[in-house]
């Protein structure tokens, strides 16, 4: 399968500080790639580089088109939906308005897509008139994912969707992500602290440390690697 997203020798910078030192990452079309690593390793920075939110060098190619020198809003309109760290919902707007914004770069009425999202996340339908800020953490994460999917993206970029959520909620959210991925034929690039859960669902995995990719391969191979088991899986 051809990759839908390819990063080659990508460096990223915060001001003069180099946070990524030339990394190679791929996401297969219809596949799910997970980035593992400690806090501050450069996982979030990798996602930001893809979406043009940090200055970067090297090649980032999405569906055959170079993403560099494109603005974040152009990249979004090309079909890359990014659910950022901390979810990035519009807390002062209603659930329904958040979803409408997800469909901003799509032509036509968002009604059908919205009905589909309410099917995946029935709780959002109950709360459609409420302000997003009044939702629980798990509901806000669902809203963030639903809003991203409203864009009908080809690539869904998720930054720690489990952050701050109870284990049961995390499992529910990952089950939905897995289902949506198959039904909507959307590829996923995921950053996740919960390594065992992520490796179960993903097909490719990369281990990032201090701005370098230190291990990569199929999720299966990485979860069998004794060193990774010890450091990230805890058994």
């Amino acid at each position: 399968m051809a990759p839908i997203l390819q990063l080659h020798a990508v460096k990223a910078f915060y001001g003069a500080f180099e946070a990524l030192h030339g990394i190679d990452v791929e996401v297969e079309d219809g596949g799910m790639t997970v980035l593992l690593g400690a806090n501050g390793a450069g996982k979030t920075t990798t996602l930001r580089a893809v979406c043009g939110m940090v200055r970067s060098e090297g090649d980032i190619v999405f569906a055959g088109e170079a993403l560099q020198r494109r603005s974040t809003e152009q990249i979004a309109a090309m079909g890359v939906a990014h659910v950022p760290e901390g979810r990035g919902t519009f807390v002062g707007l209603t659930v329904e308005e958040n979803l409408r914004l997800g469909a901003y770069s799509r032509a036509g009425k968002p009604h059908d897509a919205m009905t589909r999202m309410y099917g995946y996340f029935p709780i959002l339908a109950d709360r459609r008139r409420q302000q997003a800020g009044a939702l629980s953490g798990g509901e806000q994460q669902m809203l963030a994912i639903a809003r991203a999917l409203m864009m009908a993206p080809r690539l869904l970029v998720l930054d720690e969707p489990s952050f701050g959520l109870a284990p049961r909620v995390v499992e529910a959210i990952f089950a939905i992500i897995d289902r949506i991925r198959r039904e909507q034929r959307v590829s996923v690039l995921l950053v996740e602290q919960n390594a065992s859960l992520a490796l179960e669902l993903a097909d490719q995995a990369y281990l990032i440390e201090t701005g370098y990719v230190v291990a990569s391969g199929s999720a299966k191979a990485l979860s069998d690697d004794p060193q990774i088991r010890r450091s990230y899986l805890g058994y």
Partner: protein
Amino acid sequence: MHLFLQQVFSGLASGAIYASLALALVMIYRATDLVNFAQGEMAMFSTYIAWMLVNAAVPFWAAFALTLVISFIGGMIIERVVIRPVENAPVLAAVVVTIGLLLIFNALAGWLFTYTLQEFPSPFPDRPLFGALLTSRDLGVIAVTLVMLALLFVFFRFTTIGLAMRAAAQNPASARLCGIRVGRMLTIGWGLAAAIGATAGIMVAPILFLDPNMMGGVLLYAFTGALLGGITSPVGAVIGGLIVGVTENLVGTYLIASQLKLTVALILIVIVLVFRPNGLFGTAIVRRV
């Protein structure tokens, strides 16, 4: 009692004008964290444009509409040319730019139109209504403000572009991730604020007479109204503006000489900042560092 009600109504009329300008201030503050000190002078300049059109025998309401369009475009150009370069500069730099704009518009108006007071026509006849409780002119000013507020409400609430502007003001990073061009939203926001300000200028000019310094006091009252409403709340700005208008009129009638009325605004600013820094409707601003 009759005098009291009279003063309340006439206060509501001037309050409506302050509310419009306060709304323009709040719109820009929400979108860019910036108080546009030039908002008043921009409105004054717009009013001169309307004055020129009226003098060129354009019917009043046509001149009014045309002025709003010109102000909208002018506001967008100002954002693009003058504000955009200091977008990421320290806030003090941006504030100085707006003060510079204030001086430029003031001087430009003085140079083009001189500092002589000009009479500006009112579209509304000055007839007493309801046993002289209020004049038809007051009623007209209040009606124009209400219509403008209703249009803005519909725009921000029900149109996609209005929704995108709210999103861009609230969370620019997330808005970009939704594919919203935040820069364009800011440009449109400045255009709208300029058009709202122009409405305030045209409504106030028949009362104050038109001159380049006309909006100085009005801006101070509007700023007080915006602050009273909590600087981040559009509804608060409108209610704050009305409260300021009524307070100003009542205090000027009963307590102090009307020449001292402007101090009411300053006293209100101090009271708000001391006792309720978030205003009536504002939310506390917490910055994460």
